[in-house]
C-alpha cells in the first residue's frame, strides 16, 4: 500500500533521516496501519462538519499589552550553540 518511494518522500517532508533498512520497515508497518485505518472511508460523512478540537471555546482574547517575559540567557540556556544572545545556526544560503 505504501511503497519505498512514498516512504522516502514523506521522510523528506518530515525532515527525518532514515536508513535503507528503516525505509523497508516503515513501508511495511505503515501499510499495515493504513489498511486498518481504511474502514474510515466507508463512513458516510455527507453534511457532517469536521471537528478540529474538543474545546467548546473559540477566540479567547486578551488585551494587547506587553507582559514581562524571560531574559534571553534563560531561554538560550538549552541551546546547543549561541552567539551574542542569539541562536547560532548553520549557514542557510552560501555562495557556492
Amino acid at each position, binding site marked *: 500500500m505504501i511503497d519505498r518511494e512514498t516512504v522516502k518522500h514523506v521522510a523528506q517532508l518530515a525532515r527525518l533521516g532514515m536508513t535503507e533498512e528503516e525505509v523497508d520497515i516503515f513501508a511495511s508497518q505503515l501499510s499495515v496501519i493504513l489498511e486498518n485505518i481504511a*474502514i*474510515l472511508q466507508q*463512513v458516510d460523512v455527507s453534511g457532517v462538519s469536521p471537528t*478540529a478540537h474538543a*474545546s467548546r471555546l473559540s477566540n479567547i482574547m486578551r488585551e494587547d499589552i506587553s507582559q514581562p517575559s524571560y531574559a534571553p540567557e534563560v531561554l538560550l540556556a538549552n541551546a546547543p550553540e549561541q552567539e551574542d544572545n542569539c541562536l547560532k545556526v*548553520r*549557514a542557510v544560503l552560501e555562495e557556492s
Partner: protein
Amino acid sequence: MTELYQLTIHEAGELLRRRQISSVELTRAHLDRIRAVDDRVKAFTLITDDLAMKQAGEADRRFNSGATVSPLTGIPLAIKDVICTKGIITTCGSNMLKDFKPPYDAAVMERLNAAGAVMLGKTNMDEFAMGSSTEHSAFFTTQNPWDLERAPGGSSGGSAAAVAAGMAMGALGSDTGGSIRQPGALCNVVGLKTTYGRVSRYGLVAFASSLDQIGPFARNARDAALILQAIAGPDPRDSTSSPDPVPDYSAALNGSIKGLRIGVPEEYWVDGTQPGVVKAVRDDIEKLRELGAEIGEVSLPHTKYGVPVYYIIAPAEASANLARYDGVKYGYSYRDTSDMWEALEKTRQIGFGQEVKRRIMLGTYALSSGYYDAYYKQAEKVRTLITDDFTRAFERFDVLVSPASPSVAFKIGEISDPYEMYLQDIFTIPANLAGICGVSIPGGFSNGLPVGLQLLGNFFAEDVILRVADAFERVTDYHTCWPKAV
C-alpha cells in the same frame, strides 16, 4: 501495622494537620520505599530527594507556624516526565530531551507548589507519551508492581506504578488516548482523564494538542479529587482552558448514586476483550445497580472508528508539534556536519525513537498533498460523529460504564505489532476525541491481575464520575489491595 507509605492522602493529611507526623517523616518514608523497590519497578527517571526534603521541611514550617495549609501541603507526589519542571530535567522519555532543563514550571506545577505539595521525582513514560506500555521509553521499561514481568501500561506507566507500589501518594499523568486510564487500570490505581479544558496544558510538552490533558493518579477517588481540585481551573496561558467554575469535588462525594442513570455502551463489549475482564466489569455493574443506580443499555454506533480516527488525528498533530525539534533551540543536536539539512535530518533520526518516527511518518503522510482530504479531513468528520454519539448518550444517562482496557497487564515484549498495541486504547480513545472526562478505578481481578472499570462523564462532570467511583469504593475493597510483587 500500616506503614507511612501505605497511607492515603486523606489519612496522611489528617495526621499532618494534627501534627502526629511530619512531612519530613512522610517524605522520607516514600524516598525509602523508592530506594527499596524502584530498582525492580523502575518507575522514576529522576528522584529529586534534596528538593523533596526541602519542600517537606517548608511544609512542616507551615504546619508548625499556623500558616495557611491546603489538603496537599506536605504530601509527596510523583510527576510524569512530560510536565515541565523549572530547572529540573524533563526528558519526555526521549533522547531528544535527555538533558533538557525547562526555563519555567508548567501551570500544574505552579499550582502544586503553591499548595505546598512535595515532589519526589519525575516518572518514566513512553517517548513523547506515544505508547501503552512504557516500552517506548528511550531509557528503560517500567515494570508492573503486580507482576514484574508485565508492563504497567502507558504512556503514564511510571506514575501509575509509583502510586501502586507506595512510592508516591499520588501522581500526575497525561492522557491523549488513554495514557492515564489504561496504566491506572493495569496497576490497580485511580486514573482520571479530565475534560478537555479543565486543566491548563501550559508547560505540558505537546503531543496532540486537541487531545492532550493532564490528570491525577491516586489510590482512591477521594484522593484523586484533592489533586484535581489543586490543578483544575482557568489559565490565560492556555487559550483552550475553560473559564467554567471549578466545583468542590470533595463535597460532591456524598456516597449516594441512587437514581443516577448509568449507561452500558453495547459497542464496548467487543471480541478480543478477555473473559476475565468482561466478568469483572459485569460484576461491577451489578454492584452499581445494588447501590441504586439505574442501569440501561446505550449505543455509541461509531465506536469502532475511534482507533482509526485517533491514528490519523494524533499523529497529524504530533508531526506538526514535533517539528520544533530541530537541534537549534534546545534538545539533542547533531553537530558532525556543516550542512544545515543534514544536521536537521540526522538530529531527528538519532534523537527520536522508532514509535515517534512511526507517528511522525503517519501524520506527515495523512497531511500531505493528495491525502489530506481522504485521511485527515475524513477523520475530523468522523470525530464529529463520535462526539455526537456521546451527546446523544448523555441526554439519557449521567455516566457511561465499560472496561478501561480490553486486557489485564500483558507481558513485556508480548505485543510487537504496532497496530495491536494501538488497540490497547480501544475503550479510552473515544473520550479524548470527544473531549469528555473519564476515570479508571480498581474494578476487580482476573488471575490475580487488576481489572480497570472505566466511568465516562459528560463535559466538566468530573464531580459526577468521582461520586460514582467513591460510592463504588465504599462497598468494594479492590482499591485497598497491595501488589505482592514488591
